[in-house]
């Protein structure tokens, strides 16, 4: 504990050099600017900005990532408040009340409560990250290959079955991701798999190319198919500020939102959607002005926005401690770690402790920088929303091509990018969620390696796949998630026979 603190202080020592502070500043500024742009969520922000870090050494690269990570989040909330449609499902709630506030002339207050709430949630979330990550590492360090396999399978099942509205579509996306992860030469035996005899595929498909293809190119093609031809209305905004009454109404929702968001981020099936909706419902119930909800209640912006940010901080715990991404942004960050040859997991904290603590320290620094930047710069960010859409999406394709080409310097990757973009287009068209695919690409090869390691230890006996108590518990959770529709039907039938109430609407 004391040791962790001193390492964190060392981390601050690393970031507090003029050069590194400049890198952090560039990270938060560019992250916010790109995050503000419509159509670009925080995962795509990180994926598109990866090339920025190619020329940097790992420490600086991660300082920049931390800035981009939080900056992209802040930027997203500005977009959803000032435009009337949310870009990401986690900012749907912010858009409801925030946009109503903006329309009634309270854009400044909505932006201020979102920015300060994000700061508070980011600060508390990062502190909790410091406390919990070492604990999770201490738990994870004794886990064996079968336990990891079990945790990864839980991750697969959770992102496919719990998030999103349709299980079969979630699992289909996951399987496609796992197959993409399979491509390349098998590391254990040297056998090529699914390489179609193309030498460029021997090393597998780079995760960055997958992320950029599915997010950036897929999104652009999807927007091309359905571009809103009328210009969107941007609400003018002045200097964000909060009156005394707004502060009084905001601070409790910030804290409650943080309390809801962080645990959901840490859980393998977390995500930010559920805590933002829960926070909204909670604030509506606790509010002294429930009649204002749906018309621009400041609590309805403060709570969900804090929940969103705290959940983002929470997702870093399993990512750093277990190497398990639970949202798309964390998945892309994990991919970025891999491009530096760094394998997240329980050993990361001991092997690369400087890097990790510098990353965490720069989360604190970036968070503070964002607060100082965002309040005065809000009118400038709002102007970014007026970029003509043809230029915006042409720019996305332009930077996507540049980033994907730069990974391996081969034109082949651009064709791959286009193919993946078409896949991303089809997934958007048919409502297949993107996250399971990305998680499958990243975790699939790791899961296979753990599984084969487990079997190697047991000499090929399948019982080797079941490890100790940890994997029993994890598989039990997996079984409950998989059987949930049946369980729920059973429970609601019993419920109905008892109380005569109508059953819940079944999900497809």
């Amino acid at each position, binding site marked *: 504990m004391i040791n962790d603190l001193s390492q964190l202080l060392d981390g601050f020592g690393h970031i507090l050099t003029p050069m590194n502070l400049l890198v952090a500043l560039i990270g938060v500024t560019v992250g916010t600017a790109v995050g503000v742009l419509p159509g670009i969520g925080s995962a795509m922000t990180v994926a598109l900005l990866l090339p920025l870090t190619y*020329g940097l050494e790992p420490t600086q690269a991660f300082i920049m990532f931390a800035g981009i990570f939080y900056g992209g989040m802040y930027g997203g909330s500005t977009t959803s408040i000032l435009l009337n*449609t949310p870009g990401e499902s986690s900012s749907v709630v912010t858009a409801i009340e925030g946009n109503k506030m903006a329309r009634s002339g309270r854009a400044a207050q909505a932006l201020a409560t979102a920015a300060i709430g994000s700061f508070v949630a980011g600060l508390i979330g990062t502190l909790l990250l410091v406390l919990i990550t070492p604990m999770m590492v201490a738990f994870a360090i004794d886990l064996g290959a079968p336990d990891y396999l079990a945790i990864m399978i839980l991750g697969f099942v959770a992102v496919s079955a719990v998030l999103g509205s349709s299980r079969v579509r979630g699992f*289909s996306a996951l399987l496609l991701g796992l197959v993409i992860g399979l491509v390349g030469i098998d590391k254990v035996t040297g056998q090529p798999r699914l390489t179609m005899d193309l030498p460029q595929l021997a090393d597998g498909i780079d995760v960055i190319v997958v992320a950029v293809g599915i997010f950036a190119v897929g999104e652009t093609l999807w927007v091309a198919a359905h571009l809103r*031809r009328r210009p969107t209305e941007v609400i003018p905004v002045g200097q964000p500020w909060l009156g005394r009454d707004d502060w009084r109404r905001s601070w409790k929702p910030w804290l409650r939102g943080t309390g809801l968001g962080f645990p959901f981020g840490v859980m393998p099936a977390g995500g930010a959607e559920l805590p933002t909706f829960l926070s909204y419902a909670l604030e509506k119930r606790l509010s002294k002005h429930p009649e204002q909800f749906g018309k621009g209640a400041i609590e309805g912006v403060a709570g969900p926005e804090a929940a969103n940010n705290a959940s983002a901080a929470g997702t870093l715990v399993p990512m750093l401690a277990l190497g398990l991404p639970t949202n798309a942004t964390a998945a892309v960050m994990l991919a970025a770690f891999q491009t530096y040859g760094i394998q997240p997991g329980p050993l990361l904290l001991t092997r690369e402790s400087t890097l990790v603590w510098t990353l965490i320290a720069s989360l604190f620094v970036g968070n503070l920088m964002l607060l100082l930047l965002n309040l005065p710069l809000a009118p400038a960010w709002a102007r970014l929303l007026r970029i003509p859409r043809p230029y915006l999406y042409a720019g996305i394709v*332009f930077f996507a091509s540049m980033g994907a080409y*730069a990974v391996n310097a081969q034109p082949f990757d651009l064709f791959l990018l286009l193919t993946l973009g078409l896949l991303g287009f*089809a997934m958007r068209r048919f409502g297949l969620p993107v996250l399971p695919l990305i998680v499958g690409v990243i975790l699939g090869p790791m899961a296979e390696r753990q599984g084969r390691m487990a079997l190697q230890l047991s000499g090929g006996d399948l019982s080797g796949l079941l490890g100790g108590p940890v994997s029993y518990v994890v598989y039990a959770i997996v079984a409950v998630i998989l059987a949930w529709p049946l369980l729920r039907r059973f429970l609601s039938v019993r419920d109905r026979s008892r109380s005569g109430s109508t059953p819940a609407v079944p999900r497809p």
Partner: protein
Amino acid sequence: MTMSQPPAGSPEQAPPPVSGRGRDRAQYGMCAFLALAGVLVLADALGTGSATSSNDPIGPRPVPILLGALLLIAAVVYAIDVARGGSGEPEGGEDVDPTSSIDWRTVVLVAIAFGVNAVLIEPLGWVISGSILFWSTAFALGARRHLLTAVVAVALALTTFYGFAIGLGVNLPAGILQGIL
């Protein structure tokens, strides 16, 4: 507990289901794609040498075989879901008008612009191919001030080339402008 519907007064009218009254039959195409992928993965796995050793008792084949089989199962379950009237909700977004029908002309133009860049990037270099990419994508998406678009495109390509390739050492080809830039 569908979480996709906002609790009250959604800012935009809720998008009507694309399927309308009838079923969204195009979804069968996605099922077919999944099945095809499954067959492909299975065929590839069966063609792979089964190199097992004491070090690696299962070899490279079981995982692809499992995934191929699961893909086939997913395709069937998906098709059953579609047949029973299930449909996935097309993704929304700030600039997406979900009520409009797919504008294939724009999609194809953007895809062609992208492919042209992939072909030209090495012979002509990033500055030229990137400019063409930006200009033609913007054109496909409706930009009509051609000269302004061209200026933006060239400026962007030059900035990124100098900033990333020369400044940060990122791999971008100079192509025929080698020595001039």
